[in-house]
């Protein structure tokens, strides 16, 4: 049995799907952030796998993942800060609460 490219893409895809599912279904904003982490993580896997399987000569994919992790960290930090801020003013982290601006 060979470990083909696709075999690594499948878990990555499912991870992405789970992220999407989580984003749309969770009520807790932190849980939503967690879902987003799943999505970002799955993209990293894609890059690495593509790099390693298809274009092993260069390390573009690897570097991209490297930077993407950093970006994800920055995003998460900022997002969590905002969530906490919202918590301070709204006293909870329920995403359904922040729908005052609409229509």
């Amino acid at each position, binding site marked *: 049995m*060979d*470990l*083909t*490219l*696709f*075999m*690594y*893409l*499948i*878990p990555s*895809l*499912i*991870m*992405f*799907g*789970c992220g*999407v*599912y*989580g984003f749309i*279904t*969770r009520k*807790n904003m*932190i*849980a939503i952030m*967690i*879902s987003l*982490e*799943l999505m970002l*993580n799955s993209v*990293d*896997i894609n890059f*690495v*796998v593509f*790099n*390693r*399987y*298809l274009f092993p000569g260069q*390390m*573009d994919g*690897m*570097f991209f*993942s490297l*930077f993407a*992790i*950093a970006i*994800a*960290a*920055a*995003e*998460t930090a*900022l997002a*969590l*800060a*905002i969530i*906490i*801020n919202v*918590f301070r003013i709204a*006293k*909870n*982290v329920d995403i359904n609460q922040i729908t005052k601006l609409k229509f």
Partner: protein
Amino acid sequence: MESVGNIILYFIVAIAIIVFSVLTVTTRKILRSATYLLFVLFATAIIYFQMDYQFLGAVQIAVYAGGILVLFVFAIMLTQQPGKSAEALATHRRWLGLTAALAGVAVCGYALFSYAGFGGRLLSSGVDVNMEKIGQFLLSTDKFGYLLPFEAISVLLLACIIGGVVIARRR
């Protein structure tokens, strides 16, 4: 032909990723969710190791598992409210999420699996990914050098720091 150990490792990792991903987004307890995420991240790191990108795997563990997840836990602690540890899901929301996720997976899956260029590629051996190379690429200004993004991301991080300061200030 892959070594059996690799294959077994792969299956363990794959199943772990799938199972814990699902658990991450389905569990009702937020802290558990964070924990499952940790497992997913670890499993991802293992894939990186398997791909011979040890540096990346290390970064994954250090930054993600070590940094981000701690942030999450802090955030969870800060926003924890007594008696409100569990969240209930509205059913229609679940259907929405399911359709979106499935549609996304289906479209991406079809696109990926129908692409002719990916078929039957195997892991090539003998790729040397050592730290020295990584360091040189990271600070090179030539093609495939990453000095500029390296500088740029510092700006990004600085911006995020300032942003964090703005948000975190009481007033």
